[in-house]
């Protein structure tokens, strides 16, 4: 075990900075919501969800086998199934099981 006090301080710093980042927009725009924030609130969710998908896939390597095939195939299957059936849980379960299978087969 390392120095306990320092470890506690480290956790405190990580928690503090994270809370600060989460509260910042709400503190800055606490009185009224400016027009550009309303606009961003309207369009950002679309862009962010795309960013999060890319974020989840950031570590795949196209240079080494299986060349990101499990990830890309599973994402395509999840998206396709959801477009077809519109059942959130079904799309996620099938996508995840397919991914786990592809990981072991490819």
């Amino acid at each position, binding site marked *: 075990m*390392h120095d306990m006090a*320092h470890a506690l301080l480290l956790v405190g710093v990580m928690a503090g900075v994270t809370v600060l980042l989460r509260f910042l927009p709400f503190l800055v725009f606490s009185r009224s919501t400016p027009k550009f924030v309303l606009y961003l609130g309207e369009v950002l969710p679309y862009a962010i969800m795309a*960013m999060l998908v890319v974020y989840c896939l950031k570590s795949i390597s196209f240079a080494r086998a299986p060349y990101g095939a499990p990830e890309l195939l599973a994402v395509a299957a999840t998206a396709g199934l959801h477009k077809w059936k519109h059942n959130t849980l079904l799309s996620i379960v099938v996508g995840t099981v397919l991914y786990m299978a592809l990981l072991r087969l490819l």
Partner: protein
Amino acid sequence: MRLELGKGVWKKAFQDTLPVMAGYLVLGLGFGILLRDAGYSAWWALLMSVTIYAGSMQYVGVDLLAGGASLLSAALLTLMVNARHIFYGISMVDKYRDMGKGKPYLIFALTDETYSLVCRPDAPGGTPPRAYYFLVSLFDQCYWVAGSVLGGLVGSILPFDTTGVDFAMTALFTVIFVEQWEKADTHLPAVIGLAVSVCCLALFGADSFLIPAMIGITLCLFLLRGKIAGGGKADA
């Protein structure tokens, strides 16, 4: 102001968070195991998951703890890894405006996954919004805390191979992306998000693409606001 906690809202919140449950239990478990291997007991997993509650940052935090990093470098790294949360806040400022007493917790608990659920247009689906947002946030954190504490307790002696279950998170974001795509009048914001993120990933690499991507997305959304404005009805 009391939350109106009817039966319907509990059920809806629970059902909507099921995918997050799968992902958080597994990711939390992985975190708890790593932390235990680094010499920190389940108590530390509990402490970190209750107070920090940010998945990728807690994984990074294991290295910081194990290496005895300086407080300044911990602060800077947290700033880098979690800067994207500013994004979530900005897009929820208006939606969370009248959330009463529970509001500080809603803001504290705004992780990637919780954001992906609460940012959906008409997310509460007829249930009382305050209660719905609160329960979704609380359930998600419970899953995360449970997973990480369990990981710290049992270590790596799980009887089955869970490699890849964390894909549930990717699948959740993909599903929400498809839903938003179908509801949007203009696909430009989604295309911008995808294109800018992929370009930044190629340019800056996996470890440092998020902040350039956030800046690029914001810039593009502003430059093209004439074409987009009024078209994307994300939040009511």
